[in-house]
């Protein structure tokens, strides 16, 4: 359809198209800049992990190492017992996440489905624990763990952090939305609470279960301060603490080897994140919009 526009109108139309185009370009430029700011340090970690000393100590820096030095990874692995650090982190994270999921679902189930007088007060009491993070009471907690003889043990690393307040809160929010009729029907057929939890409530709560589990996994994998104070033997250190130990040993000259070691720590989490970021984000925003 051809319509001849008056000259001025055509000009304004042209001007707005140009402007719109300009704004579009600007937005994409910003998007690329933002991506660069958040990506480059991670890229830098990976790139430096393959540099030899000569390439680390040049300016302007070498963005991509010409001859990748894979031995940095071997050197890092041998400079500190990283095999042992991995074992410790895997054990404490796995048991920690399992405990959080078990205790969180059981507590939330009780708060939603089992009658008890004044249970809302108990719920508030539990939420109050969010104000007392383990960091703030680390001194008396350290003394408790020491008195139990749990220094340098997995129990010492795992148990004090195994209680769940925030996860229970998220589970409870979800359980409240489940259709009561299904549960009542199962109840009338004689199912007990434990069966209801495992056979009906949990299968209906897979997304929130995965989300709470992933957030717990990230937190426990990266935990630094608590494992630092309840262990002092090198063979009981977890990955992040072991990484800091390696840095103390090597000093800040061996950046290639140290960056290879940071890859040991972040690579598993980055892989899980690439696969499951949707679930992690869902949980964090659920806490914000419903809380």
């Amino acid at each position, binding site marked *: 359809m051809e319509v001849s526009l008056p000259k001025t109108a055509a000009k304004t139309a042209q001007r707005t198209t140009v402007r719109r185009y300009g704004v579009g370009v600007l*937005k994409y430029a910003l998007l690329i800049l933002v991506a660069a700011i958040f990506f480059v340090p991670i890229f830098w970690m990976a790139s430096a992990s393959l540099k030899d000393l000569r390439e680390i100590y040049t300016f302007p820096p070498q963005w991509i190492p010409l001859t990748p030095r894979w031995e940095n990874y071997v050197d890092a692995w041998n400079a500190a017992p990283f095999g042992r650090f991995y074992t410790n982190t895997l054990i404490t994270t796995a048991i920690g996440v399992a405990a959080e999921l078990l205790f969180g679902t059981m507590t939330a189930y*009780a708060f939603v489905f089992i009658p008890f007088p004044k249970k809302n007060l108990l719920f508030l009491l*539990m939420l109050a624990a969010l104000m007392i993070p383990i960091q703030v009471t680390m001194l008396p907690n350290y003394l408790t763990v020491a008195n139990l003889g749990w220094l340098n043990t997995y129990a010492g690393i795992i*148990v004090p952090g195994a209680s*769940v307040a925030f996860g229970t809160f998220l589970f409870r929010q979800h359980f409240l939305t489940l259709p*009561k009729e299904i549960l009542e029907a199962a109840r009338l057929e004689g199912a007990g609470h434990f069966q209801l939890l495992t056979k009906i409530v949990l299968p209906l709560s897979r997304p929130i279960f995965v989300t709470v589990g992933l957030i717990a996994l990230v937190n426990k994998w990266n935990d630094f301060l608590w494992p630092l104070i309840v262990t002092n033997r090198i063979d009981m250190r977890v990955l992040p603490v072991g990484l800091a130990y390696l840095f103390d040993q090597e000093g800040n000259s061996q950046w290639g080897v140290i960056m290879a070691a*940071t890859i040991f720590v972040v690579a598993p*989490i980055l892989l899980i994140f690439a696969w499951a970021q949707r679930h992690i984000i869902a949980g964090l925003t659920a806490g914000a919009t419903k809380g």
Partner: protein
Amino acid sequence: MPTRKGRPWRDYLLFLAFIAPNFILLGIFSYWPLLYQAYLSLTRWDMIAPTKVFVGANNYRFMFAEPGFHRVLLNTAYFTGAILIGSLVIGLALALLLNQRLRGRTLVRGIVFAPYVLSGAAVGLVWSYIFDPVYGLMRVILDWFGIGSPDWLVNTSWAMPAVIIVYLWKNAGYSAIIYLAGLQNIPNELYDAAKVDGATGWATFRYVTLPQLSPTTFFLTVTTIIFSIQAFDIIAVMTEGGPINATTTLMWYLYQQGFVAFRAGLAAAAGMVLFVLLLVITLVQVFIVQRRVHYS
């Protein structure tokens, strides 16, 4: 749910059994240590001697009289304040950008959020290398603008900004996704109405977007303060509270007094100060949320 009549105690027992593991742990490792810490803060003890000397409020008096501790409080306020303002402003800007219909925005959202899940110790180490005044990446960027690189982590006035930059880089993605969720909850009708009224882009942002986001901003304010008050790992690997205490926050002070200097009483007192700060922030939150529920 209907319960079999006449035997409520069975349900009560079951309730207690279900919540027992969690509540026993909370009791031993959250509530009890708070009480015990309150007591310890009134004693002098080196964590080895069999007896603790009761000294009343002396630890608090000593702490608040010491100029070094004033520095610690100032550092904590500097760190927390900069991170609060930085993550709100940067988070909102990122959310506004990533909320646009742009190709590749899902990927960029992932990239922006990725640092949040990385270990603080690892992140701190990478940035120590980036901040290297001679061979670091930061020097390259400053060179583009013709600015010389400061000796970031060794200089008493640049160490804190450096730590703050790293913390913001790691956590801005969190604020951004929370703000994104907030933006997506704003009903479209409000924007339509603004358009009908002839509001410009800035006016729409000022009078529709920002007020509608205020619950999100409030939630982020509280969580950011609580998390930044507890920040530890990045400081531990980058500066260890130095140079000359320039990055010693309340959290680092507590660690130093308790686990390096073995002054249990002072560490406990610092822990109580931290707890009171968290308590005040939470009470303000509860108060404001309740008022909003009642009066709106």
